[in-house]
C-alpha cells in the first residue's frame, strides 16, 4: 500500500490554487445571496481562508456568504494504481456556529481557471457531497479536520486522474448545499482554515493506493555446445551408433576406445590428429568411406572382427598398423584372406594360428 499527499499551489500558482469567494450584499434575501452568479471579492493568496461563512443581520437577511475552492494536482499518481481511499484535510484556525446545528460539506467545484480564483467562481460549486458532512460541533482549531471521501468522491478523484490529474473541490455550508436558510437574526457561522500560502498546515488531499503490478517476460534463445579440444575422447561406450556426418573429432589425441560395438554409416568418422587410435573393438562394422584416418600414427588394434565394405578405410600415415585380427574379410570378394599386399613390403607372421600380424609400410 502506498500514499500520495498533495497540496494546492501557493502563490504564484502553477497547476492548482486555493481561495475563497465572498458575496457581501447588504440586506440580501436568502435567495439573493444563495443564487448570486458572482461574489464581490476573492482571496486567492492569503494565508488563512474563510472557507465557509454565513451571516444574518437583525432583520434575518443574509448579507454575507462565503464559499471556498481547493484544487489538488494528483498527476504524480503512478499509472495503473488502484485507489483504495482518499482523505482531505483542513487545518482549522477559527470555528463558530451562531446559527447552530450547522455542518461543513465537501463538494466539487469548476472554477474558470486552475490557477486563480475570481468572483465569477461564486456559483461554480456542485451539490454532490464527496464525503460525510462534518458537524460544527466536531470542527476544531489547531488541528486538521479530515473528510474521508465516499465512493462518489473516490470516483470523482479517479475521473480526474484519468483526465488532467486535477481534483477540483470546494467547501460550503451544508445549508448552502441544501439551499435551506437556517433562520435567525444577527447570527454568524464560520469556519476558517490555513491556506496553501501559509506554507505549513496547508490543505491536503491524500490518496491511498495499490500500485499496478508489472509483468516482465524474458524470451530466451537456445545455446549450442560443440566439442572441440586438444583431447577429444569418447570412451567406454557399449554401443555407439551414429549416422552420416555425426562426429568430427579433432585434436592432438583422438581416441575411440573400448567400444563393444561401434557401428557407423558412411562418412561417420573423421579422425584427424597426431595420434589416432581405435582400440579394443570387439566388433567394428563399417560401410563405405566410414573412416578417414589421417595422422602420424594410425592404429586399429585388437578387433575380434572387422567387416569392411569397399573403400571403408583410407589410411594415410607414416605408419599404419593392423594387428591381432583373427581374420580379415574383404566384403568385395567375400573371402577371408590376409590383407593384400601394397607396393610396400609386408611381413606375414604366422598362418593357421589365432592371430595374424600384418605390417604395412606405405610410401610417404
Amino acid at each position: 500500500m502506498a500514499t500520495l499527499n498533495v497540496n494546492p499551489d501557493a502563490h504564484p500558482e502553477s497547476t492548482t490554487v486555493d481561495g475563497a469567494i465572498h458575496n457581501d450584499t447588504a440586506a440580501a434575501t436568502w435567495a439573493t445571496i444563495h443564487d448570486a452568479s458572482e461574489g464581490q471579492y476573492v482571496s486567492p493568496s492569503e494565508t488563512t481562508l474563510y472557507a465557509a461563512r454565513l451571516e444574518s443581520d437583525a432583520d434575518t437577511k443574509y448579507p454575507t456568504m462565503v464559499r471556498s475552492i481547493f484544487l489538488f494536482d494528483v498527476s504524480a499518481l503512478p499509472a495503473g494504481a488502484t485507489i483504495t481511499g482518499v482523505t482531505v484535510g483542513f487545518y482549522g484556525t477559527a470555528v463558530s456556529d451562531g446559527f447552530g446545528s450547522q455542518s461543513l460539506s465537501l463538494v466539487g467545484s469548476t472554477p474558470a481557471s486552475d490557477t486563480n480564483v475570481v468572483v465569477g467562481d461564486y456559483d461554480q460549486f456542485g451539490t454532490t457531497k464527496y464525503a460525510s458532512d462534518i458537524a460544527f460541533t466536531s470542527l476544531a482549531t489547531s488541528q486538521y479536520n479530515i473528510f474521508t471521501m465516499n465512493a462518489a468522491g473516490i470516483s470523482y478523484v479517479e475521473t480526474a486522474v484519468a483526465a488532467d490529474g486535477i481534483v477540483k473541490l470546494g467547501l460550503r455550508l451544508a445549508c448552502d448545499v441544501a439551499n435551506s436558510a437556517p433562520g435567525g437574526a444577527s447570527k454568524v457561522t464560520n469556519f476558517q482554515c490555513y491556506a496553501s500560502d501559509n506554507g505549513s498546515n496547508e490543505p491536503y488531499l491524500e490518496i491511498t493506493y495499490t500500485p499496478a503490478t508489472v509483468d516482465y517476460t524474458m524470451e530466451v534463445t537456445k545455446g549450442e555446445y560443440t566439442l572441440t579440444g586438444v583431447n577429444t575422447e569418447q570412451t567406454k561406450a557399449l554401443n555407439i551408433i551414429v549416422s552420416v556426418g555425426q562426429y568430427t573429432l579433432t585434436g592432438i589425441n583422438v581416441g575411440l576406445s573400448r567400444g563393444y560395438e561401434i557401428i557407423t554409416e558412411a562418412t561417420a568418422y573423421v579422425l584427424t590428429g597426431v595420434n589416432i587410435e581405435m582400440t579394443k573393438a570387439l566388433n567394428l562394422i563399417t560401410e563405405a568411406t566410414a573412416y578417414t584416418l589421417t595422422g602420424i600414427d594410425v592404429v586399429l588394434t585388437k578387433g575380434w572382427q572387422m567387416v569392411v565394405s569397399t573403400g571403408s578405410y583410407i589410411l594415410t600415415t607414416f605408419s599404419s598398423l593392423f594387428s591381432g585380427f583373427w581374420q580379415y574379410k574383404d566384403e568385395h570378394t567375400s573371402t577371408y584372406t590376409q590383407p593384400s599386399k601394397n607396393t610396400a613390403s609386408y611381413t606375414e607372421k604366422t598362418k593357421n594360428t589365432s592371430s595374424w600380424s600384418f605390417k604395412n609400410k606405405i610410401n610417404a
Partner: protein
Amino acid sequence: MAVALTKIDSFVENLAEKKIDLSGAALTVALTNTAHTATWDELADLTQVNYDNCSSRVLTVSTSAQTSGTYKLVLADLTLTATGAVGPFRYIYIYDDDSTGDKLIAYYDYGSAVTLASGDTFKIDFDASNGALTIA
C-alpha cells in the same frame, strides 16, 4: 528482443564428468544482480537475491533427448511471482540443484536490473521448439 544463453565455462567439464544431469528434476533458477565472472562454477559463487517473496524457481524439463547425435534440452516456461519485494536482479542462472555444489549450467543477462513488487511477475520464455540448449 530475445536474450541469448551464455555458457558457464565449467559446464562442459562438469557435464563430461557426470557432475551435472540435465534430465533431472532439479534444474533451478537463481537470481543475482552481480555480473558474471568466468571462474564461477557453483551456486555459492553467486550473490543471490532473497527469495522469501518469490514463487518456485524449479524448472520443468519437457524433453532431454538426442536426435541424430544432437542433444536438445527443452524447458517449460517459468513464471516467477512476487508476493513482496524481490530483487533487484539482472542475471538469471540455471543450475543443477541435485549436483554436488549445485553446479552452474548457463545464465541469461536481462540487460537491466529488475525489482519485483508484490503481484509482479517475471516470465522466462523458453523456445519450445529449438530448446534451451543443444550439444552436438
